[in-house]
């Protein structure tokens, strides 16, 4: 624990520890919070994100469910109607395909279809993303598919401190939140995390690196890579800004417009397939908001238009520092 200038203290935590501490704190703060999912109770989650909750809060509030993603998602609707605050875990985001009809057709539209009678204070956590050589369907980045389901908020933290601040806000949020945790970040990202109550409002982007030649706009683990690229290009005298969107719904349109207006050049990075990916939405937003401030076309860095590959091809698929660096150079050469 370290003291900070504003009188608070911080702890050096991995993203996983930050998530676990936040779940403990939110369950202690509000006894309506219940955690449900596969292996979340006795095993503390396959990544240990829910470790210690079962021992501390008991079998009624921390529940191992059968392997049934649809009813995990569907039961959160009923639990929310009954006045609880469910925090469900889908063990890997790729498994959410087996819950899509509940997530898209029910969780996302509960408030809308009942015109506000019920408050869907539902959080669904799921790990996703590449870099850890998982079996098939464990690493897919499906955020764009969910962004097309009106009614869901999609939160994708990039740092340990944000994992805490955004998860606490998500659990307290009256709208349903899909909280996506990068597999590589669980133990691969660590940093100072404020102790005590730490809330970050949803829909407010963060400038991860200051700069004014070009802005890299991205989210989740790709923020880490974008920052490394920015730091590396700094030695060449290039000033690369990194804008961490933190959530893609709600989207901080204003922050995107400001960053692009100030830099004039932009690169958008995502881990999903290129076609229909969320980067395309960011590019469209730039066109609408600040097209005339562009000095060069916006460049996208995405996965390829194939299903997420098996382990030996993973590094070819997932954007890395080299591809991001090439994209930054390209946008500086264009226009």
């Amino acid at each position, binding site marked *: 624990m370290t003291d900070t200038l504003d009188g608070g203290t911080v702890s050096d935590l991995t993203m996983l520890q930050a998530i676990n501490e936040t779940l403990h704190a939110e369950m202690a703060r509000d006894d309506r919070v219940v955690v449900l999912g596969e292996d979340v109770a006795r095993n503390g989650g396959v990544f240990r994100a829910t470790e210690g909750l079962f021992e501390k809060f008991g079998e009624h509030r921390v529940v191992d469910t059968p392997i049934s993603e649809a*009813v995990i998602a*569907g039961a959160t609707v*009923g639990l929310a109607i*009954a006045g609880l605050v469910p925090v469900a875990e889908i063990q890997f985001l790729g498994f959410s395909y087996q819950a899509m*009809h509940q997530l898209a057709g029910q969780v996302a539209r509960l*408030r*809308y279809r009942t*015109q506000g009678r019920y408050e869907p204070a539902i959080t669904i956590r799921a790990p996703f993303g590449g870099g850890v050589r998982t079996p098939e369907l464990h690493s897919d980045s499906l955020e764009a598919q969910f962004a097309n389901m009106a009614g869901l908020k999609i939160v994708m933290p990039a740092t340990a401190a944000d994992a805490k601040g955004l998860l606490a806000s998500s659990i307290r949020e009256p709208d349903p939140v899909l909280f996506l945790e990068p597999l590589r970040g669980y133990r691969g990202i660590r940093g100072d995390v404020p102790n005590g109550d730490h809330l970050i409002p949803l829909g407010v982007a963060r400038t991860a690196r200051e700069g004014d030649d070009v802005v890299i706009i991205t989210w989740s683990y790709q923020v880490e890579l974008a920052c490394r690229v920015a730091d590396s290009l700094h030695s060449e005298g290039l000033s690369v800004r990194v804008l961490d969107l933190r959530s893609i719904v709600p989207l*901080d*349109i204003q922050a995107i417009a400001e960053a692009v207006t100030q830099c004039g050049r932009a690169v958008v990075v995502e881990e999903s397939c290129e076609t229909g990916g969320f980067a395309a939405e960011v590019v469209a937003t730039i066109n609408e908001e600040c097209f005339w401030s562009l000095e060069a076309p916006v460049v996208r860095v995405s996965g390829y238009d194939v299903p997420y590959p098996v382990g030996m091809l993973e590094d070819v698929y997932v954007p890395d520092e080299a591809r991001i660096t090439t994209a930054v150079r390209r946008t500086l050469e264009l226009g």
Partner: protein
Amino acid sequence: MTIPSDAQLREILVDMVIARTQSGRLWNLQRQGQVGTVAPVDGHEATIVAATHALDTEHDWVVPQYREPLALRRYGPEILECFMLYSLGHPAGGHIPDPIRVLPNQISLGTQIPHAVGISWGMTLRSEPGIALVFFGDGSSSEGDFYEAGNLAGVINAPVVMLCVNNRWAISTPVHLQTAAESFADKAAAFGIPGVTVDGNDATAVYDAVDEARKRALAGLGPTLIEAVIYRLGAHTTADDPSRYVPPEDLEAARRDDPVLRLACHLRELDLWDDVAQEETEAEALGLIDSAFDAAKSTPLTPDALLDNCFSTDTQRLARQRFQLLQARMTEAN
């Protein structure tokens, strides 16, 4: 065994006659182009009405599919008012007001069963008395949600009553193409819970089965699957022509066992029902639905209501869309 009193049976019949009469009116309104697609209640009245008469409306939840609303009168006049808005396509039709414990119609078949399990589970977590009763059809029982929800309900011992209304038809698909099981109630074995089959045209039998399942659930003994066997006497919906596939002799036989006529006959024998009661009840039913329809038609709706209640507050993007929508409407108006 719990038998409803004669007075209760009469109340049940009144609600059944009202549901049947209003369903006929709604069918005509659809044919006149005044409302959207309608699913007639004919043949389902005893099951829906008697089941809900076995509930405590203050504590027990009803999670319907889509054919039930006209038969849920016991939960208050607001159900009909909302249903008429819903039939018009007014968004307020989905907002059944607090504290009425009835969810709006569910169109995505079977998805409501996990919701009912979640509600009943939530009530136990909050130590609230009450159960959830969920309606679904023989066709819906083929959806994965039925199995996932039934399985979870068994594991967590949820106080839920799963009422499978077997009306023999899922649009044009007969039950033998829906399942190879002997009965839908048999499927309870896979969940480790009791499964009961009742004659769904017999209001007393339905009342008793639901009452017993409810008491079991309240005693902490967990869920029950009830299969109520009936026959769909009308079309699937106003968009369907059952003469293409329903054997006329089967329909004729089913009409002889019409649940409304059956209970009316019984109460006539007890001198609790007669032609006057029938006519007065039908007139009341028409008065209620007509005034609910008039109220629905005069319920205001602004174009930007389109964007209301998607989120608790507008996101930046929704706020922009709202501004653009209102601006476009003003330009058009000028």
